[in-house]
């Protein structure tokens, strides 16, 4: 990555007020450099999923601007650069594992997605399930497929919304390995998680958000220093209480 590269993600004054009046994000500014491994931490309702949904064109933003590698987020180019693994399992019940990946690739403009789909099926250990439809997969297999789908079209920015929520230790370690490898290959990662040790283990930089506002942003070490504590848990408690 070069100093002149546009940020992978830039939010300028992003505001989202839902139809019921809830203000989920207010005048939110954030810049994530290209190639970063960036963590977003905050309690339920802090605005993490709203932020992600805004970037991925899954909600109507009230105000502000979202740029992906310098392009407005709703352009076709910017959309093709983003891969999203949502927090909830949202797989197409009519498609098999192979079809899930191939159709996703097709939606994202891949003319011949078969070989990439096969590659990911192997990488995520889903060979035995390639012709099985999503509802018949186990929870762990669905989680793997969700991540594989997000990577299918080789996105430059991968957004992972609590990818390890509710998964067992072994799968969590597997997912960490995939995500680390992805980052090592130059992909920018935006990760939201409730697990502080996960954020500390994986992320180069962490932002703490609460009630739709950015509270603090730094490396795990920098946050500990800033809040004068020795553990990230204490940082979190102090930041959320302030």
């Amino acid at each position, binding site marked *: 990555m070069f100093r002149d590269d546009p940020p992978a993600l830039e939010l300028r004054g992003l505001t989202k007020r839902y139809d019921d009046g809830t203000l989920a994000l207010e005048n939110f500014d954030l810049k994530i450099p290209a190639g970063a491994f960036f963590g977003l931490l905050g309690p339920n309702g802090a605005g993490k999923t709203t932020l992600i949904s805004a970037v991925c064109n*899954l909600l109507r933003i009230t105000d502000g601007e979202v740029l992906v590698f310098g392009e407005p987020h709703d352009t076709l180019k910017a959309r093709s650069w983003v891969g999203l693994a949502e927090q909830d399992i949202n797989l197409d019940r009519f498609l098999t594992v192979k079809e899930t990946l191939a159709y996703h690739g097709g939606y994202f403009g891949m003319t011949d997605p078969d070989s990439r789909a096969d590659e990911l099926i192997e990488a995520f250990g889903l060979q035995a399930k390639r012709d099985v439809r999503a509802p018949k997969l186990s929870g762990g297999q669905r989680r793997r497929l969700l991540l594989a789908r997000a990577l299918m079209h080789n996105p430059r920015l991968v957004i992972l919304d609590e990818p390890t929520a509710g998964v067992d230790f072994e799968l969590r370690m597997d997912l960490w390995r995939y995500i680390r490898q992805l980052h090592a290959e130059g992909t920018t990662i935006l990760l939201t998680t409730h697990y502080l040790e996960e954020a500390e283990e994986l992320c180069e930089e962490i932002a703490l958000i609460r009630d739709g506002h950015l509270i603090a942003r730094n490396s795990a070490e920098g946050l500990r220093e800033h809040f004068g504590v020795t553990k990230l848990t204490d940082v979190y408690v102090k930041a959320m209480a302030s």
Partner: protein
Amino acid sequence: MTGLVWLCRRETLRVSKLWTQTVLAPVVSSILFILVFGLSLGGRIRQVGDVDYEVFIVPGLVTMGMLQAAFANNASTIFQARFDRYVNDVLSAPMRPWQMSFGFTIGGIVRSLAIGLSLIVLSLILVDVPITHPFELALAVTLGLVLFASLGLVVGIYAETWDHTSFIQNIVILPLTFVGGVFYSVDVLPSPWQELSHFNPVFYLVNAVRYGFLGESDVSILLSLAVTAALAIPAYAWAQYLFTTGKRLKS
């Protein structure tokens, strides 16, 4: 355009994977109507105008089977996609709104055409129904499918439960179809029912299709096509508006 092609493939795949439910069942029920109503009642009602009764009901049954399939398919596909939230995979993809609405419309059209063609072939074998004006028939079918496929999408986008989609199907579309002249000519109805039939949009569609098959219609073919087009265009525009603005699809 690649995204659109794959979305069309996905919608067609859904229809073909469930073919016994999506195509076979409506074809069997329409054929039963021809056998039960046409061939049995045909002995009592020999002709409507110059046409044998079992032939007279075929265009209406083809219309009924196709428009119900177009509506039901699209209402269920988009509602299911919203309900399971895999619609997000399409909404976040690099596709234009018109490509998304067109792609989601295709499944209902493919399913309806499969039903319509099957019924035409079976009707040719069973009652030798003629096709006297193929161009008008194709135009009427196209407009009818656009109208009901788009309505299906709109209802599936607004629906909050499965009951909402089946309510519209069973309480609005099915009754309008039955009183739209599928089984009779409105000429035989007493006043005011005959006049009221002219406020039923399905009446014009049934008559346009009947003209295409038999060359006979209760109203002018131009009026039938114009009324159907006047409804189909705003229905398609409504579906398109929902995808363009994200209303009801995005929070």
